[in-house]
């Protein structure tokens, strides 16, 4: 009696161990054939609000989201990212959000951009005029529809959702906007002549402006009056018309044929008013600014990273409708317009505030010559409506930039309503069985160990009591 009790107990234990092994084996087979269950999507692991379109924001967002994704990778449960957008993200930020969606992370975005779909097309009309046919269609809005290009605002229409224009010329890119909605097309630059008429008195400013423009590929014609009876010519100056010249550059306050210049810009030419030319009374009607007083140069600033402050400049007051393209920081706590553009007729007028910009090149840092060249190259390009650098901007443009909002929807999906997200189940409650199965699926080695230990224990017990 006393001899059989331990054997019976041991026999029961062996049966239990065998049962555990069989159960483990069955569980493994069940897990192998069990379909993947609903994932445990953790709710609202991230909420991000973008208040601007800066790429730095995209970088910060990328870092944050991927830190979350990496942290979640341990339990193989992709997370859901909720993003609250207060502005349409930049191209880089949109690409990042698309990549997150592609990585099997659910992205819900709340639309607080107040933007809507806006379509813009620009087609060059076949024919000698080379005019650009522009059409815009957007959602109904009480906000005005604004059309602008690099040279400034072209038109503004209130209470409309469809509009069309025929433009004589366009300085790319062309942009249409209704409130926060914006669409742009990188129209091709017209094939303009790269010939410039320079009207200036002989001096270091005209000399170095000429040098800078020639270095970036412009051909300069001009005539300098060096004595009452003697003029020095540059190139082969001819009559001022848009067939011969793309831009006329004026650098000094001097007597000019203002009627010819006004006619030139009305017909589609570009005009650059630099420095003291902003004070030519006869050109006040086409000037995009009013030059008030001369801002003194900051001593030593030419050798800093803001060399423009080392130049004398006119303080500019931009006209209504003019576009301030570039401003300089000032000691007065506000930005001083340095480059202002405006459309006049079919042409463009660009105002550059700097006097004696040659000092930037000669007395600045070793980069001064290149910066001076780039400055004048960009000013001329803006006036002429051509790219500042060689190349086709349309070829390099990302198609999604034509309609950023639509691109965002295409990449991430439609926005979700705040109510919908709030009401959505945050996390589905799983049964104890599902949780156990999920845990075993996550750790298959544990199941194998249980089976092995059970079989080993049964085998050892049988051997110890003499059975095979």
């Amino acid at each position: 009696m006393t001899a059989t009790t331990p054997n019976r107990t041991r026999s029961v234990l062996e049966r239990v161990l065998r049962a555990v092994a069989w159960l483990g084996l069955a569980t493994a087979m069940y897990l192998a054939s069990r379909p993947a269950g609903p994932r445990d999507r953790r709710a609202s692991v991230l909420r991000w609000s973008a208040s601007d379109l800066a790429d730095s924001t995209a970088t910060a967002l990328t870092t944050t989201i991927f830190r979350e994704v990496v942290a979640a990778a341990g339990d193989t449960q992709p997370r859901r990212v909720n993003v609250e957008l207060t502005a349409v993200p930049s191209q880089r930020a949109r690409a990042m959000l698309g990549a997150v969606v592609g990585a099997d992370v659910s992205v819900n975005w709340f639309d607080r951009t107040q933007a809507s779909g806006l379509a813009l097309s620009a087609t060059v009309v076949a024919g000698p005029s080379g005019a650009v046919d522009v059409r815009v269609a957007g959602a109904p809005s009480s906000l005005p529809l604004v059309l602008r290009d690099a040279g400034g605002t072209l038109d503004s229409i209130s209470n409309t959702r469809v509009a069309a224009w025929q433009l004589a010329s366009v300085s790319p890119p062309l942009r249409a906007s209704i409130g926060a909605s914006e669409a742009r097309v990188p129209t091709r630059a017209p094939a303009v002549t790269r010939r410039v008429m320079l009207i200036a008195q002989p001096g270091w400013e005209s000399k170095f402006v000429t040098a800078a423009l020639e270095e970036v590929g412009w051909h300069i014609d001009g005539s300098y009056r060096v004595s009452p009876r003697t003029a020095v010519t540059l190139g082969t100056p001819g009559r001022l018309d848009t067939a011969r010249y793309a831009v006329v550059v004026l650098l000094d306050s001097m007597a000019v044929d203002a009627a010819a210049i006004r006619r030139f810009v009305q017909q589609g030419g570009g005009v650059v008013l630099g420095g003291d030319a902003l004070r030519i009374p006869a050109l006040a009607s086409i000037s995009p600014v009013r030059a008030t007083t001369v801002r003194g140069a900051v001593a030593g600033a030419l050798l800093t990273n803001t060399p423009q402050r080392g130049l004398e400049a006119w303080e500019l007051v931009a006209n209504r409708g003019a576009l301030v393209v570039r401003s300089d920081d000032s000691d007065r706590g506000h930005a001083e317009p340095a480059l202002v553009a405006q459309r006049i007729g079919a042409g463009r007028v660009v105002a550059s505030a700097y006097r004696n910009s040659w000092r930037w090149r000669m007395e600045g840092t070793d980069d001064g010559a290149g910066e001076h060249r780039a400055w004048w190259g960009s000013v001329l390009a803006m006036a002429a409506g051509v790219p500042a650098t060689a190349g086709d901007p349309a070829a390099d443009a990302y198609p999604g930039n034509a309609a950023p909002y639509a691109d965002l929807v295409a990449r991430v999906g439609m926005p979700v309503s705040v109510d919908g997200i709030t009401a959505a189940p945050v996390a589905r409650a799983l049964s104890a069985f599902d949780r156990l199965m999920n845990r075993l699926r996550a750790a298959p080695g544990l199941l194998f160990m249980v089976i092995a230990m059970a079989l080993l224990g049964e085998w050892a017990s049988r051997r110890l009591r003499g059975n095979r």
Partner: protein
Amino acid sequence: MSDSTRAAMRDATAMDPFVFATAQYESGDWDSAPMLPANVIDSVARYTSLPVRPQGVSVPLSSEAVFAYPLLFLTGHLPVRFTTREADVLRKYLVRGGLLFVDDHNHDVDGAFHKTVREEIRRVAGPLVPLPNTHELYRSFFVFENGPPTTSHEMNGWGDNLVHEQLDAVLRNGRISVLYSSKDYSSEWSFHPDNKRFLSVDNTKFAVNLVVYALTR
């Protein structure tokens, strides 16, 4: 608009006058032609309507102050050896678009100044090449059909006893960067401007061409 406002506006929009600058260098005698600047300034004021400052300046070649004067005159009799600092500043000056006019005050191709300064120019800016007598420099104001005007020192047989037919230059982007003369304009132009009335032909006219070229090209 008040008179004072008009006057202020005239001052604000007035062009900076041209300033004739002479380069000071540590070796040699940079101030060997003390009357030359006044004479050149007089000629520019006499023949052109360009605003010009009545007094010239002397600027150390080792100083970045030279960058404020895009036309620089350099002369002397003695050997020239630029210091490292002078060579560095001059190299930057020329790269940025400055024009250096060098004249051999010895009028001697075997002279110390000629030999040494050409070596220094080669080291800093590259080799000098003959400038064609059809270059626009000779038509930028007065017309010199035969190239650089001959000096009395060449005709008198002083120095190397040669009449130099051409000037030499280093060109950069199609513009004269360094202009070198063996014709001894330093002696030719170094006299009091009042004495021009004794000349049948003003021999400083070529200096006007040089200034006008520098300001317009």
